[in-house]
């Protein structure tokens, strides 16, 4: 399986601060990947690097086998990108916004664009500046989808939307995925939304990848262990302890299991994605570096 997006030793530095550091990733074609992390983790940096808005300080990033900086016309026509806050020219009407897409994209699908606008219940004469945030996000998504992209990159598309608009927006994405099987990378810090539509996960924190893999594998590979209060030494020798917490009489460990956990002292529980993500984001110790192969082997 080929990678839709691949990075090697990718780094981006602003001043003395690495927004992204030593990042090795391979996102398989056809996957829907959630890019998760706190603000300033490097999510926007990664997506902007992918589409060539910024240039890497170190390493390489390729989308569909091409560097967007060096060969923009090999990348841009195949990538739908919705930037944070989904900027659109406010003075344009919706019809003019669609014309903009038609003028600037050779693979533009006018029927798709018109259909989506009609489905959204918007009038072609409305000015973009008068639309609600959710509607603007939908128009920006329409612009990205009507390019008929192979890869769709969405940078915090739902962050500024209310729950209903969020749901509608993600339904639009999901519909496009089921219709055309495009690769999607979607950054967000709202985990519940991502779980609904994503099959892969990348956790970024402080410019580094903390966890990369298929959600299915991630869920299967993590367990919550509870037992009498003790130090996690024995478990930690075999498994990666992501988070430990103690009460007076009980210790709880969230571990990434390397094989089965056979310890009679511990009770095993399944753990949901949100808990795993939060554990990794709060996890300060040695980063659980994962290999890109873990993603590619979907």
């Amino acid at each position, binding site marked *: 399986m080929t990678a839709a997006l691949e990075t090697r030793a990718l780094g981006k530095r602003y001043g003395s601060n690495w927004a992204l550091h030593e990042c090795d990733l391979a996102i398989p074609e056809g996957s829907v990947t959630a890019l998760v992390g706190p603000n300033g983790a490097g999510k926007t940096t990664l997506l*902007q690097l992918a*589409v*060539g*808005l*910024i240039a890497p300080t170190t390493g390489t990033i390729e989308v569909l086998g091409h560097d967007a900086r060096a060969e*923009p*016309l090999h990348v*841009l*026509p195949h*990538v739908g*990108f919705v*930037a944070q*806050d989904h*900027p*659109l*020219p*406010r*003075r*344009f009407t919706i019809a*003019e916004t669609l*014309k*903009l*897409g038609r*003028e*600037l*994209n*050779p*693979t533009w699908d006018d029927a798709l664009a018109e259909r989506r606008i009609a489905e959204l219940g918007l009038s072609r004469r409305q000015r973009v500046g008068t639309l609600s945030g959710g509607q603007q996000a939908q128009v*920006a998504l329409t*612009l990205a989808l009507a*390019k008929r992209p192979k890869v769709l990159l969405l940078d915090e598309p739902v962050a500024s939307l209310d729950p209903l608009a969020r749901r509608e927006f993600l339904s639009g994405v999901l519909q496009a995925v089921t219709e055309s099987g495009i690769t999607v990378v979607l950054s967000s810090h709202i985990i519940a939304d991502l779980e609904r539509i994503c099959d892969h996960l990348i956790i970024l924190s402080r410019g580094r990848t903390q966890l990369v893999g298929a959600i299915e594998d991630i869920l299967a590979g993590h367990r919550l262990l509870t037992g009498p209060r003790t130090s996690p030494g024995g478990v930690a020798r075999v498994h990666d302890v992501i988070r430990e917490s103690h009460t007076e009489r009980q210790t709880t460990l969230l571990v990434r299991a390397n094989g089965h956990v056979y310890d009679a002292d511990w009770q095993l529980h399944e753990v949901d994605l949100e808990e795993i993500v939060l554990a990794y984001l709060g996890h300060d110790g040695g980063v659980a570096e994962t290999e890109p192969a873990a993603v590619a082997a979907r």
Partner: protein
Amino acid sequence: MIWVGWRQQRLETAIAAGVLLALAAVAIPAGVHMASVYAHEHLASCVGNAESSACGLATGSFQTRFVGVNLLFTWSTLLPAVAALLLAAPFVLDLDSGTYRLFWTQSITRRRWLAVKLGFGVIALAAVTGGLTVLAMWARAPLDHSGGRMGSSAYDAEGIVPLAYGLFVFGIAVALGALWRRIVPALLLAFVAYVIGRAFMDSWLRERLLAPVKSTWQLAGQHGPNLDRALVIDQFLSDKSGTRIATAFRPCGSTSSGFLTHTNAVCAQPLARGAHAYMTAIYQPASRFWELQGIEFAIVAGIGALLVLLAAWWTQRRVA
């Protein structure tokens, strides 16, 4: 991108064109009227005719009568700057509002976006400033014929200098906009830079672009050069070699406009004692109009063009 570029700047282009049309709506009737008065009173024959006091009076009263037209064109020299700010706005606004991220992720290169946005701005600017030049050269013809066009209200509205200042302001605005990505401070600062640049050029640098002519003549009997149309930098009583004589004499009128230089000589005469009084004038002759315009254009438009290129380079390489 052609349609998009035009769509994004048509409002600004229309406003700039509207200001030019409003100016034309006043200047064209005034110009027609002024031309008929000028022809009717045979004032053209008075040019260079310094001996005739009737001519001097008639020319003086003509210029006084139409001082309003002169004032109108003095203010019109702001039009290139205003048009440049308007036409730089769509470029800076894209950077300010973040919509550049939308354009740069469509199927076009950043270079193409830059070429269209900046190219369209410059083209519209050239059209508006060209319109001002044509209007000013036509409507001001009688005033220029009698008083020359070295004064600011003619010089800065005619020829190629209006385009130069337009490019200058456009360059500053887009360069600041590219570096700063804030539209309001970028445009405000560009205007401030324009005012400073214009004041510096009008009051100091322009008269030094070429070595001025120095001419000395005897007040009694001799006629000096005709300074009606010249840019007079200085004029004073002197000895025969042109060295200034310390005196309480002050010219009666403005020396910069060329309007009232006749009167200067008349004023000076009662003060001149005997045949030893000389007058010296330092000036740029009217015949140097295009030469001076060419030099000023090269400097001012050159700075503007460099700033436009800087904005393009910075945007291409640095902006994300």
